[in-house]
């Protein structure tokens, strides 16, 4: 009966967001993506239809391949690191450590600092002359491993470390939230059976939040593929080195240029299309892997 009554609410409850979404999001997106079939400089000049030319050019474009490689590297390798560490920390923080809230807050904190500040201090940490990383290696006697961490050949892994550092806190918070919902008696039962922390996490916590992890993975994938701010902050005086490109950065570079204007909006839209396509594919993949019956408890 409640269901039937609630039916009356469908329109008024759904309409505001649906209308806003359709008018100001979906419609511009379709227009924007549609631009990928054209060539346009953004000023009121003729917009010429060129069909799939942009996409063909993409395949031959080295810079696009670098951006693609970086974005996927961030998702897979970065994701691996982030979730390995986040899982470990989740198991630690759910095993009865005190001041759990404090630790959680501190770990989340990097998400709050403006990217430019984060990148600046990390660049100083990476600095080959007075940086903390080389300094630390010296102190513990591994000085010979010290090097130019952010040199062009290594710049994207260096960026990935920074992003991972920030993201670990974010996903830790989400994982803890998910794990929190598991009733305490399940943990107690496990403890009585003699499980240690690691087993608890692996055999109890993880399976129970498996589908939630799937959702968190999707969030990470989207966030990794949309990564812009941190890599962009590695620019000096307005130009991002190509080795640091991610797909969204390349979209902006092609659409709006950096210091030098490059107005190729059609091409930029084509990159956006590819990005969206990858997101959709990966979402389906992730959902399939993590699909499970919803547990009620």
């Amino acid at each position: 009966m409640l269901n039937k009554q609630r039916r009356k609410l469908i329109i008024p409850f759904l309409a505001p967001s649906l209308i806003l979404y359709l008018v100001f999001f979906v419609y511009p997106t379709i227009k924007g993506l549609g631009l990928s079939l054209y060539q346009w400089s953004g000023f009121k000049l003729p917009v010429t239809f060129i069909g799939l030319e942009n996409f063909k050019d993409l395949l031959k474009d080295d810079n696009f391949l670098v951006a693609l490689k970086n974005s996927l590297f961030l998702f897979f390798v970065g994701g691996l690191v982030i979730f390995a560490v986040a899982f470990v920390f989740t198991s630690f923080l759910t095993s009865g450590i005190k001041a759990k809230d404090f630790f959680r807050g501190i770990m989340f904190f990097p998400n709050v600092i403006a990217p430019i500040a984060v990148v600046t201090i990390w660049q100083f940490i990476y600095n080959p002359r007075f940086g903390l990383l080389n300094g630390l290696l010296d102190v513990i006697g591994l000085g010979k491993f010290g090097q130019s961490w952010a040199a062009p050949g290594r710049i994207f892994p260096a960026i990935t470390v920074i992003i991972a550092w920030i993201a670990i806190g974010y996903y830790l918070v989400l994982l803890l939230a998910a794990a929190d919902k598991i009733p305490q008696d399940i943990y107690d039962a496990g403890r009585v059976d003699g499980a240690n922390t690691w087993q608890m996490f692996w055999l109890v916590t993880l399976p129970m939040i498996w589908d939630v992890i799937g959702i968190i993975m999707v969030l990470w994938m989207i966030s990794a593929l949309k990564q812009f701010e941190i890599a962009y902050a590695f620019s000096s005086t307005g130009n991002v080195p190509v080795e640091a490109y991610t797909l969204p950065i390349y979209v902006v570079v092609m659409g709006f240029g950096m210091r030098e204007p490059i107005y190729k909006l059609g091409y930029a839209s084509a990159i956006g299309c590819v990005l969206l396509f990858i997101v959709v594919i990966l979402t389906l993949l992730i959902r399939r892997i993590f699909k499970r019956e919803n547990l009620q408890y």
Partner: protein
Amino acid sequence: MDANIKQSSQRNRGIDRLIRRITLIPMYATVSMWAFFNIFVILWIAIASFKTNRELYANVWSLPTSLSLANYIKAWSVVKMDQLFLNSLIVVSVSVVLTLIVAAPAAYILTRVTFRGANFITQFFTAGMGVPAAILFIPLFGMLAARGWVDSLPGLILVYVVLSIPFTIFLLTGFFSTLPAELEESAAIDGASPLNVFIRIMLPLASPGLLTAAILNFVSTWNEYMIALIFTTSAKNRTISLGLYSLQSSMQYTGDWVGMFAGVVIMMVPIMIIFVLLSRRMISGITMGAIK
């Protein structure tokens, strides 16, 4: 015999507890090291904001010789951060609240009422999360400019709300679907109208989820500058993230790094406060179940 078993099992429990305590130590150590590093980063930024550029250049890691507020005074008066701060506060708070107002009812309906297409609509909303924002800029700007809504705070709020809808609905539908239905059923049986059920029962129950969405949206919108850059022009409509951005982009001609760090700290403070105050409420009891 019973007494023996009882004694030995007590001893076992004692040893167990000791072992557990010992295994906690490396955990404390790792987590503390990580926390220590994070605190170090925050402190460094704060300390840098009290230095002069000369001190920063001379030694990046040293403490300042004197704590001067010059950078903050400059940020406040020259960059006019007070006006920007106010703008950001208004824009971000209003858009966060408005997002919740439009998204929460939609998420509720999509999870509670089964109708054909409900699932599709949910997916439709969340698919928006995958769209790179840059694609939207020019078409959306054109639409808003035609209506005269650019370069205005309400226009900016509109854009932020619309862009937050996909993620918020994603979060809230996941959250709502795990809340128990019994309370609503019993309220309905008691004669409450569906609207009342939503407002009186559901919303309070959902407050951790709503708070989480609010905090996450606040954090991401507060630091956001690309959209603010494109959609505002006049100085009186700028947000604080743009203030920081202008400090950053004029670096090549002013070289004022410590001034920029002061700006960074000013920006950090409100979020720190919000997070410290609200994070406990936010996390307790929240979960995100699978979307059906």
